[in-house]
């Protein structure tokens, strides 16, 4: 295992413009001209946690999806656990846990347990290990009462917790979380952050790259914060250093200052 969990070098992503009408037929062959990420370079060290902070459309999810091997970069390199995301996607996926931050992605007619076991086994856990982990996470994620219910009967927040459990089930060394507490109520969100901090990150084995609009979450979980604006990395430092650089007393103020918005202007969507 290298010292660097994730290494990005000049990572750039352009999307093709969206077409409507008969031209939609040519969509798959359109040239990518819309920039989503431009020349992103940074490293996530082993056991480190970096938060991606930026307004909607800043490129946070695009970056996470490239690392999860769901998107191909237009140029540049992304190396995860020593493997190139483009040329060795299966090797990359061995080290990754990915949570897309939505309450989708489960088989609605299967129970929560059947879903978790299915995805755990597809990640090459043995049947016994998968069963043990499911029981363990059921306790930690307060899923015990929901495990044997069909997913279609579960609340959005419960499915969100289920999705987080799925991302962690095969003990990945790198976690990619896209707005992990988006659908959780305040208590569940706090409980989840505490779980991440104490159970996932404390042993120092798991590296975390997560996108969030919650500045409280970022301050609690992130060692460093990567601020993205219009697809560009405009700052990367510890929360304390970012505040110092922008002479701000809070991370929120620092974010507004770095992105060039007055503190009271409504433009960015980050909120505490």
């Amino acid at each position, binding site marked *: 295992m290298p010292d660097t969990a994730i290494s990005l070098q000049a990572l750039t992503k352009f*999307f*093709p413009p969206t077409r409507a009408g008969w031209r939609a*037929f040519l*969509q*798959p062959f*359109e040239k*990518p001209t819309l920039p*989503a990420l431009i020349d992103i370079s940074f490293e996530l060290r082993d056991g480190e946690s970096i938060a991606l902070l930026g307004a909607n459309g800043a490129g946070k999810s*695009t970056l996470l*999806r490239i690392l*999860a*091997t*769901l*998107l*191909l970069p*237009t140029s540049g390199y992304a190396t995860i656990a020593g493997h190139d995301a483009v040329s060795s996607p*299966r090797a990359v*996926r*061995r080290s*990754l846990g*990915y949570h*897309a931050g*939505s309450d*989708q*992605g*489960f*088989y*609605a*007619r*299967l129970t929560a347990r*059947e879903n978790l076991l*299915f*995805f755990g*086994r*597809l*990640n*090459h856990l043995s049947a016994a290990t998968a069963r043990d982990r499911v029981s363990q996470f059921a306790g930690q994620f307060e899923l015990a009462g929901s495990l044997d219910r*069909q997913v279609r009967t579960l609340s959005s927040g419960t499915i969100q917790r289920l999705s987080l459990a*799925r991302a962690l089930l095969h003990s990945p060394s790198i976690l990619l979380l896209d707005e992990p507490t988006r659908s959780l109520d305040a208590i569940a969100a706090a409980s989840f952050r505490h779980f991440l901090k104490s159970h996932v990150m404390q042993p120092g084995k798991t590296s975390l790259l997560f996108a969030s609009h919650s500045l409280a979450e970022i301050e609690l979980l992130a060692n460093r914060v990567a601020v993205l604006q219009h697809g560009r990395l405009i700052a990367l430092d510890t929360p304390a250093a970012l505040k110092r650089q922008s002479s701000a007393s809070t991370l929120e103020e620092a974010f507004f200052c770095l992105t060039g918005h007055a503190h009271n202007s409504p433009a960015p969507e980050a909120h505490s």
Partner: protein
Amino acid sequence: MTAFFRELWLFFRRDLYIAKSYRSPFIMEIVQALFGTATFYYVARFVESPALRQTLPQSGGYFAFSLIGFVFLDYLNAALDTFDRSLEEARDSGTLEHLLVTQTSLPAILAGSALYPFAATTLRIAVYIAWGALFFGFPLDSANWPAVVLVLLVSLLAFSGLGILSASYLLLFKRGNPAKWLLLGVSSIAGGMLFPVSILPDWLQFFARLNPVTYALNAMRAALLGSVRLRDVLHPLAILLLFAAILLPLGMLTFAAALRRTKSTGTLAHR
């Protein structure tokens, strides 16, 4: 290889559990098969004549001929539909991306997702034939069962390539199934489904010879009705294997290229 088959089993079990959660459609399908079989029986009685019997390649009359044609086309339909329906369901439910971030290979995801639908279609074919044999005199005494199983398996391989090609189209263009439209359309005329290919004009017989369905149907009718030995169906089986050898790798390569393209355009989860 063991991991590959274990993954296939996981997908099969997933689909079995999902199917078990809906009970009534299965029972309705069994009843529907009875109505379908009865329809073919009475149409056959209506059109049956000594002249018609002479044009048929095997014994059993027009009822057996047309029933096999119909149920086998159902098999083709399933092969063409299964891959893109699984893909569409996975995309719409959001599970596609989560499957693609697991350590499971793309061939295992594709083959695994098709396994249960194929098994269910095979069962449906068996139900049609069973109704035919129980109530309408479908002759089973001349069937060569090992040959029947072999023909089903090899046909499945040949048709799967077409199904994967069709799924590639869906991945890129989000709607439509041109392989199904073309092949089912051609096969209903030049595949020998409801009438023998021998009655077609020469130019249509040429298309029939290019169609894997023609060989699959010939082999299946021979295996079920023709009192043949296994080696007598080896010729159509060899041609079907040739189709499979071309279409399966072509389908997999096309699907991988389509997946790469959608990962590049960012449209993997788009509907």
